[in-house]
């Protein structure tokens, strides 16, 4: 399970935002991606999930049985082969309840065809059970209703991706707008799923204490390039990282 990018670049008006020779995500379990403002983290996330078209370069997803080129795929096809991303800005389906939103995420597109109109039961028992188990781990104001606050919407966005169990999950600033205890519960679930071998995860964060605590491996991105990679302790004590963060 590896997501590899080679010679990946993205330029807007001749201004290069991302320029990466080679990088691999998903090889080490729970990974972190950090970097100062304007380093190109969000652009890189967009490139990896095909929401942004690269100026040049190749992206490949290696799944045990062989590797797939991501370049020619549309964004829903990328999701179907197992690469999903949580959103930095709040995204949601306003007219779906929390439960429906999670049921939607866990239902495979194959069983959402025309014939599903005439199915007796909308969702099988095991779907209901997984949805309930996940929802009950969190203190939503109304577990059977709609996400009320911005924080709840943000949480639903993350839970949607967790319950879908992609091969590789990219989390884009999951803590922004979430209370500390909720963030911990989320990250504990993530860590458990990674440990169980259900998925690999890359977390993009500016909350560095969280990165140091949870990640097995950290990539440091600055000015569009990967400048340093290593275990949290190595990154933390690296001079380049400190300099780039504080500006030299």
């Amino acid at each position: 399970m590896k997501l590899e990018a080679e010679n990946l670049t993205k330029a807007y008006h001749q201004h290069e935002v991302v320029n990466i020779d080679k990088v691999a995500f998903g090889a080490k379990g729970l990974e972190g991606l950090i970097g100062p403002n304007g380093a190109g983290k969000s652009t890189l996330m967009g490139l990896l999930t095909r929401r942004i078209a690269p100026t040049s370069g190749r992206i490949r997803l290696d799944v045990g049985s062989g590797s797939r080129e991501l370049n020619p795929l549309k964004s829903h096809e990328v999701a179907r082969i197992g690469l999903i991303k949580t959103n930095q800005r709040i995204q949601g389906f306003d007219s779906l309840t929390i439960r429906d939103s999670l049921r939607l995420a866990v239902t495979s597109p194959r069983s959402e065809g025309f014939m599903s109109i005439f199915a007796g039961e909308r969702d099988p028992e095991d779907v209901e059970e997984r949805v309930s188990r996940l929802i009950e781990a969190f203190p939503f104001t109304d577990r059977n209703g709609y996400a009320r606050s911005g924080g709840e919407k943000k949480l639903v966005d993350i839970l949607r991706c967790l319950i879908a169990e992609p091969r590789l999950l990219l989390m884009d600033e999951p803590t922004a707008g979430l209370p500390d205890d909720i963030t911990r519960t989320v990250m504990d679930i993530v860590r458990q799923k990674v440990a169980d071998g259900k998925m690999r995860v890359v977390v993009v964060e500016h909350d560095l204490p969280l990165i140091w605590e949870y990640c097995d491996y950290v990539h440091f991105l600055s000015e569009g390039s990967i400048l340093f990679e290593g275990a949290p302790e190595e990154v933390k004590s690296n001079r380049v990282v400190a300099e780039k963060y504080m500006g030299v």
Partner: protein
Amino acid sequence: MDYLIFSFSLMLVYIGLAQLLHVQFGLLGIPNFGVVGFWGLGLYGTGVLYVSYDVPLVPAIIVASLIVAVVSYVLASMVLQRSGQAILAATLAFAAMVATLVVTEKQLTNGVQGLGTIGFPFGDLASRNVVYFGVLLAVVVALIWVSAKLRDSRMGRMMIAIRDNEELAASLGKDTAGTKRTVFVVTCALMGLLGGLTAPLHQFLVPYHLAPSLTFAVWIALVLGGKSHNLGAMIGVFATFGLFDILIETYAPVPAEQAIMLPNFKLFCYGVLLVMIIMFRPAGMLGEDRPRHRARADAAPANDTAVKEG
């Protein structure tokens, strides 16, 4: 009596169109402002096949609906992935094109002179207009039933997700473009089918039937009733077509010299109603829909002991 049956039959057609628009816009968020174009292509397609080529009525309706399906497929491929405003303008333009072509293609449609006559099926049955009303009723009830099932199904849930946030739905692996195209083509073809079924009601087809006011009447009905409520379309048609076209025009004691102003008064009221609804009750008279499925599954008592996943 015959006139009343005609009015009620036409009302069924309106309900059917509004129900299809509910699927397109209410569930999937496609602003189709060319309803009259798809319906009219079915209507005139059936008429031309029946009158000029002696095709029996039922095959004529089927062929006409297939033509509508092909045309809507082309249109869908061109503009469906563009912004809502572009879709709206393109469908409006499409309807205008159909209306103009009906006038220009005289050798097919007989232009402004009109195309006729299309008779009811069922041979020389005395009350065949009543039987035909029954057929229409069956078709429209089936449409409402299927769209109600759709609303509560996995497919419907996915469609609502696409309407709410297409990019997010795609990022969860849903084929948003494909779903939109397929649903659009099927519902447009069904609008064509309703057009074909309207042909025997009018018997004699004139380009005036393709005026854009039909599109707006259907939209007003949908918005009045509630665009995302399954029965909103039907209630909206009762409140507009049923109230004004049938009740008032048939039964209200209006002196003859003022009767000619009635249609204008009706459209004025449509306008006022539409403005009031959007300003004060944006979800329509019936409000938001709450599908039954959701109520059943979510009524189960929530277990408050925190259980961790995995």
